[in-house]
């Protein structure tokens, strides 16, 4: 079954070791995710593509216990909905990225724990492909 990304240009795909695709301001150095065309710190408009580190530390988290309103949410709802973790992972001192987490158990998730990028199933699309997204899972 084909595995298609939830959006083009947010992680390298297909790839053995996928990375999130951000941008870096060539003037002040701030890193954003996803990439954007202008700098939110110094307002320069010269942003360069920047691949983000695959590992980082869990900075903040919660559990999404109910299906978010659709639209815009496009994932499973009703009885197919499974609660999922959400958090910010600080990647290599460059940027904090908001992400789905593979764990949804408050006993498992700890502030400051080491996490790594994985690509996980998100939903089936109408053409029979599997839509995949980025997520972070605890290391080890």
């Amino acid at each position, binding site marked *: 079954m084909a595995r298609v990304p939830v959006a083009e240009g947010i992680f390298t795909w297909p790839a053995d070791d996928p990375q999130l695709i951000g941008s870096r301001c060539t003037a002040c150095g701030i890193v954003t995710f996803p990439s954007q065309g202008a700098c939110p710190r110094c307002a320069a408009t010269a942003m360069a593509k920047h691949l983000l580190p695959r590992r980082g530390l869990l900075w903040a988290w919660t559990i999404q216990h109910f299906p978010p309103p659709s639209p815009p949410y496009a994932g499973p709802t009703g009885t197919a909905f499974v609660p999922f973790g959400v958090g910010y992972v600080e990647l290599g001192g460059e940027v*904090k990225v908001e992400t789905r987490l593979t764990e949804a158990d408050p006993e498992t998730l700890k502030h400051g724990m080491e996490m790594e990028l994985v690509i996980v199933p998100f939903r089936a699309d109408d053409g029979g492909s599997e839509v995949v997204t980025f997520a972070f899972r605890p290391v080890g």
Partner: protein
Amino acid sequence: MDVAIVGVGLHPFGRFPDLTAIDMGAIAIRRALADAGVEWRDIQFGFAGSYEVDNPDAVVALLGLTGIPFTDVYNGCATAASVLTLAANTIRLGEHDLGIAVGMDKHLRGAFNADPRLYACPLWYGELGHFLTTKFFGMKINKYMHDFGISRSTLAKVAAKNYRNGALNPNAFRRKPLSEEAILASPMLNYPLTQYMFCSPDEGAAAVVLCRADHARRYTDTPIYLRAATVRTRRLGAFEVHSPWLPIEETPGPTVDASRAAFEMAGIGPEDVDVIQLQDTDAGAEVIHLAENGFCADGDQERLVADGELQIGGRLPVNTDGGLIANGEPIGASGLRQVHEVVLQLRGQAGDRQVPRKPRVGYTQLYGAPGTAGVSILSV
């Protein structure tokens, strides 16, 4: 030019199938006019806030088409603070002497949803289920509890206090006290926040009549002076709702900025404030906002709540009318509901929920997407 509030009016908050938002706005305005002892034809200008109503100034159809400048405002959850600030500044600048600030709304049930692209977020952010305010509040308080040692029991105590205060307020949406146990046992929405720790979108309206401070005693023996009204948006590095990413650098949020600016404008400090209204979108937000507005150090809330200091008889009475948790959040009206409560408290007219020892200074704070805060400071 200083500014005084000489009339306040409220349409109760809750669900009113037979009334439109405009109907409720007109009722709130009529009550504020009656409270000030003025007629609609005396009003020289207005600002009106709403999320659901495109043109809340259409309320003039129910009040009188007098041709006054009447400007509509929407600024997220800080809409009513923006309405108040603009109305106050109109008087401060000397353009007019007497005006109205009104907010009204009528929301459907459930969490707000919208197109993430309208908030400068990518569509996929919403498709993945991240474009959700409740999740942000869950993350923010979860991190805050970890960093500063706040317990889940404290969140339940704060929610229980607001339901208890709501039970004393005839205008509140939720008038039934709820136990800490029931609050903790209600369905988990965004860990560690349960259903009964959150406010709900609902319906209602609130209005305030403002005038030049030197005219105030023409209308009332108990003018309340608006010492400061500020609005601020987030700076880079603040931990804000609807943020697909955050920079490494960390900066205080817009509430801190709006609060500091308001205290400076008023020339008084947090230690002078006797009655407080804070944005309690959820119980955790009230806990955090208590520190962000300068009323305690981070982490002190655990002890303050345990000691009952946020209750009506405590040293820092917060959300004496039940706050958003008991009143719900009709976005356009919410901040003027806060002002309405503070004015009643400062006049000594808050009935069963009156703060003892004659409060002299009151404070209100709003916060919401996409990182906007508003603060007002009032005094006798």
